[in-house]
């Protein structure tokens, strides 16, 4: 205790900078966490959170006693892994490549344009994918017919959708992520490139051996941040694009959409809290494990 106080005093200027952040964190992020208690209670509006009866693990039963929970958990995980990996790859391509462009107007234009999909809501995206892939007058089938090929029944074929969904995520998020990377690149010292160029390194080598490694802190933190949410499916996207089309559920149904359908009729908040708690706890375990792994490999890149 005394050590702690001594340390605080000695570095008071440093620690005092964190005070506003801590205040906001505690007030707006920690206090509301109390709501998660509901996962273990039988919620009655008039009694409040604290007054409602304890329900033990009852609220988890509907989810875990079926057979589907393994399947939807798996879907959630593998889809999120695909998204994290490919979004990062494309974001890196965009950022690193853009960095090499000398033509200012081209660079600025592309930078702005790739950011645009971020603003388009998933509902609109769902509508656009429908225009592309539907059976009646879909653009893709139209194109296939023009090329003399057989039209394809997209919306009745489960296995293509993880691919389509990943492509959509890349399209929507890579631009946004690339901004973070571009900002990081902008902060890199030119000295590294100078010396490399003097030694005869090509553009490609510079990208690969200087820029890319120097982005390691950003890459790792972004991935780690994604890992913490890895048990949360992207409800907006999947519901917006797949909707209630049961045929595609085997490959695209995630925990969030599954429990939405289960509880739609009942509107039971304790039960949906239970699912969120499950997703949170599993996410926590995932990120702590991942962080421990990173620690072993490269101490400086860890999250905590």
């Amino acid at each position, binding site marked *: 205790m005394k050590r702690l106080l001594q*340390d605080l005093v000695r570095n008071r*200027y440093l620690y005092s*900078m*964190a005070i506003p*952040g801590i205040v*906001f*964190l505690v007030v*707006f*992020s920690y206090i*509301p*966490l*109390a*709501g*998660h208690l*509901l996962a273990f209670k039988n919620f009655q509006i008039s009694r409040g*959170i604290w007054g409602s009866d304890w329900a033990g693990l009852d609220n988890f039963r509907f989810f875990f006693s079926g057979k589907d929970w393994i399947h939807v958990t798996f879907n959630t995980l593998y889809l999120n892994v695909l998204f994290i990996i490919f979004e990062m790859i*494309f974001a890196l*391509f*965009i950022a690193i*490549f853009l960095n*090499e*462009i000398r033509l200012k107007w081209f660079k*600025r234009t*592309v930078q*702005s*344009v*790739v950011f*645009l*999909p971020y603003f*388009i809501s998933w509902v*609109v995206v769902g509508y*656009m994918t429908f225009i592309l892939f539907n059976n009646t007058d879909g653009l893709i089938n139209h194109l296939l017919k023009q090329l003399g090929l057989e039209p394809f029944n997209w919306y009745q074929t489960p296995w293509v959708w993880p691919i389509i969904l990943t492509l959509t995520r890349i*399209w929507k998020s890579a631009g946004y992520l690339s901004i*973070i990377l*571009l*900002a*990081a690149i*902008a*902060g890199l*010292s030119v*000295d590294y490139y100078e010396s*490399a160029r003097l*030694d005869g390194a*090509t553009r*490609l080598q510079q990208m*690969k*051996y*200087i820029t890319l*490694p*120097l982005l390691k*802190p*950003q890459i790792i*933190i*972004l991935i780690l*941040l994604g890992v913490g*949410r890895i048990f949360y499916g992207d409800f907006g996207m999947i519901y917006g694009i797949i909707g209630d089309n049961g045929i595609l559920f085997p490959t695209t149904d995630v925990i969030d959409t599954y429990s939405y359908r289960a509880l739609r009729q009942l509107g039971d908040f304790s039960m949906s809290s239970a699912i969120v708690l499950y997703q949170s706890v599993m996410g*926590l375990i995932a990120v702590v494990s991942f962080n421990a792994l990173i620690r072993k490999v490269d101490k*400086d890149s860890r*999250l*905590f």
Partner: protein
Amino acid sequence: MNHPIVPVAPERKWRGGGLSERAVMPLIGLFLILFALACLFPFWLMVVNSFAGTRSLALNGYAIWPSELTLKSYRFLLQGKQMFTSYGVTATVTIAGTVAGLVVTALFAYVLAHPKNRYGGLLSFMTYVPMIFGSGLVGFYLLVVRWLHLKDTLWALVLPYIMNPFYAFIFVSFYRSLPHELNESATVDGANEWVIFFKIIRPISTPVIATIGLFYALQYWNDWWLSLLFVDNSDLYPLQLLLRQLMSQMQLTSLNHGNVLTLPPAEGVKLATVCLTIGPIIFVYPLVQKYFVKGLTLGSVKG
């Protein structure tokens, strides 16, 4: 601020890489152009069809160029004083929130990333946990309305988002890539952390400040959740909430057995709504871009 990350072994000899120098640039250019087109095309469809007339939307859906153009959708949305008030509310909230958010988060993240901080790991962990668990809605509402008495105030629209863990960690990753020598030389000169931060760190953090500033601005600009929960007074309606209201109003009018021919096309109004929201942001972004300036030199540290 850790030791500088040395990317390559110092004695590495640069041998000619696989692809010739000449081929690289065109390929890069091609990739970027294709990706940009893929992003631009749907956006173009949205913008141009927000000006489309009913007939065009019905017959051609999202056409590349509508057969019929009209300003009806925009006129419908931009009528009345309410729109100005709402733009004002949103602008105020965005500016206030962005500035406050940047200050709080940049400082906080600096502490997280600082090597002198012994509790950095713990603090980082505590910062990250709420991101995984999400904010419990109940406690949140109670807090803002009952305990802080912020219902129907602008504070309720600004305060909850000020400290954002995701953005804090982006700051952290940036600070970690800065060489520690910067700090050390200043400390030797007798400066405390506040001085170091504002005189040394901040000026070279421009790219990341610009980025996170943009993100905060977006978050506040697009938000309708906070106002839905906490604002009943229509004078404090931000843009998004107002637009939602206008959409329902339009559906309502079309149900009356009146003359629907004067109504703007529903699909067009939806798109115009999106455009009105995105509009200002698109104009702001290029201005922000000029802060992504390259070039931190270590010259200031040597000697």
